[in-house]
């Protein structure tokens, strides 16, 4: 009986290793290509492993040429501020719905949920006209405000469940000590919901970091470009210089991979899954 179990465990491992290998093979190919001089026509065999010594010129070139650094710091700037706006708005919104009673609360909440059923991208055309009317086209301010608005529905729904799970007794004792609403939020609800907030924050940051269409559509000037936009345009221009393109691509995804590895426990355990199962 025990032997049978060990065999089945090994079988599962074999299947999973094979599957993981297939899924990661193209990524390996990308990384290897980024360390090689591949221009124009592809070699006769796919590149799976790089030649040694590694050809680092691609990385140097990718980092220094084509305003790449400007785009890198643009991306960092737009995502970090975007994330701060996102957190401030989502947390206060969810707090309103989880700890306050006010007329029309549930209808408003249902309205938020309803807008989640309609594909967000379809509103892009009128969002453009709204931003245009507010003279916010081609500004990061406009992008942040837009993201602040579009994150409301999903995140209010997501955080509300977590905030309502925080026991009210803790806050009640704080109120007895003369704490304000704001203080209980800051010192009780937020610390106790940290895992959920961290997960959602990483997801939001990832979304902003790799956002393509909002930046592409709502900004115009070249010095406002972010990495995704630059990479997409770069691909059109130098479609044959694979080594250079993939060196740039690797630089683009490294920050996201690092963040993900740091927070992977939260991702894999609760976070993204909790909120969704309740829905």
């Amino acid at each position, binding site marked *: 009986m025990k032997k049978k179990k060990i065999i089945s465990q090994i079988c*599962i491992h074999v299947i*999973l290793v094979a599957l*993981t290998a297939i*899924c*990661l093979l*193209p*990524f390996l*190919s990308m990384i290897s*290509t980024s360390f090689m001089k591949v221009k124009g*026509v*592809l*070699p006769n*065999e*796919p590149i799976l492993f790089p030649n040694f010594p590694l050809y680092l010129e691609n990385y140097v070139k990718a980092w220094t040429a084509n305003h790449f650094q400007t785009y890198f710091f643009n991306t960092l700037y737009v995502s970090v501020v975007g994330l701060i706006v996102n957190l*401030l*708005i989502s947390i*206060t919104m969810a*707090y*309103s719905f989880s700890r*306050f009673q*006010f007329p029309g609360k549930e209808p408003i909440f249902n309205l938020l949920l309803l*807008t989640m*059923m*309609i*594909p967000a991208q*379809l*509103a892009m*055309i*009128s969002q*453009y*006209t*709204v931003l*245009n009317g507010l003279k916010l086209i081609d500004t990061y301010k406009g992008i942040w405000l*837009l993201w602040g*608005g*579009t994150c*409301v529905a999903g995140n*209010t729904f997501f955080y509300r469940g977590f905030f309502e799970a925080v026991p009210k007794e803790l806050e009640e004792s704080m109120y007895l000590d003369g704490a304000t609403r704001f203080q209980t939020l800051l010192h009780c609800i937020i610390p106790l919901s940290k895992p959920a907030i961290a997960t959602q924050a990483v997801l939001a940051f*990832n979304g902003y970091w*790799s956002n*393509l*269409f909002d930046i592409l*559509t709502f900004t115009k000037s070249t010095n406002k470009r972010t*990495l*995704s936009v630059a990479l*997409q345009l770069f*691909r059109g221009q130098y479609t044959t210089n694979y080594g250079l*393109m993939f060196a740039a*691509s690797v630089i683009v*995804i490294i920050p*996201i*991979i690092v963040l*993900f*590895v740091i927070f*992977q426990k939260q991702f*894999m355990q609760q976070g993204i*899954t909790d909120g*969704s*199962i309740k*829905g």
Partner: protein
Amino acid sequence: MKKPLSERFSKGLKQWLAVLPFLAVGMTLFIVFVLYPQIKNIYIALTNYSIMPGSENTFVGISNFAKMFKDISTKGSDAYFFWIAFRNNILAVLVTVPGQLVLGLIVAVLIHNLKTGKNVYKVLLYIAVICDWVVFCNIIDYIFQPDEGSLVNYCLTTIGILKEPVAWLKNTWTGNFVIWICSIWKGYGWVMIIYTAGLLGIPSDQYEAATMDGANAVQKFFHVTLPGLRGTTLYLLINLINGAMNIFIQVFLLTKGDPLGTTDVVMDYIYRRAFNYFDFGYAAACGIVMGIVVFAISMGLKRFLRYGENL
């Protein structure tokens, strides 16, 4: 026993004043950037809208909607391309939704039954999900290049499935195929994570009871696991169908709808109409039709599957 109206009104007002500092900013942004645009879409669809300042937006009634059905069978008409794109969305739903569900479920069950190393597989298989779309599509584009040395062509010709290299992204059906593969590949890791959480929610005594009754692994899968994942599957189904009706970025980056719009999808079609041709009115009308379709599918599915639960 209701309290007098004035008393209730002043109580409500007080409650609103208390919550307003927390609610005001978020609600304002939501109204300005989500709610109002959805409503304004309807207005834009009923006019020949122009973004030029000072231009007059004349009311054109339902003619933007009518354009979606005019000369459907004439090749090259607006309606023709819209419905080709719509067809591709339906095909994407039929292919990528079952693809992601089945693959995600199989991997989730395998990982769930492991004793060690669960997290390693989960993290590695999740990399495609968190990867930047532009980078991911660059990789897909690279491995599906028409050269004989591209990863896919090389593997398939070596095994003997293909006789000669295929220009994957240049033909209608191979192009659509690459788009489907791309969507499944990038999406199933998320399905897997949601399913592994769902599997944890099935009480283990149900499995023990099944073992007592002499059920084998396959029977347990169909009689315990699948029913236990019902809620999770419903959630995934609605999300994945929504996703497949809105696929956009992979088409925009991989085929651009080529050849001749035959791999296009509705979102890409709308985007080009609006921001390349500035045909805002018509694009908004297409968007509304698509929005209604997606909304109806989600609601219908919810109704239908909930209804079944009570049986």
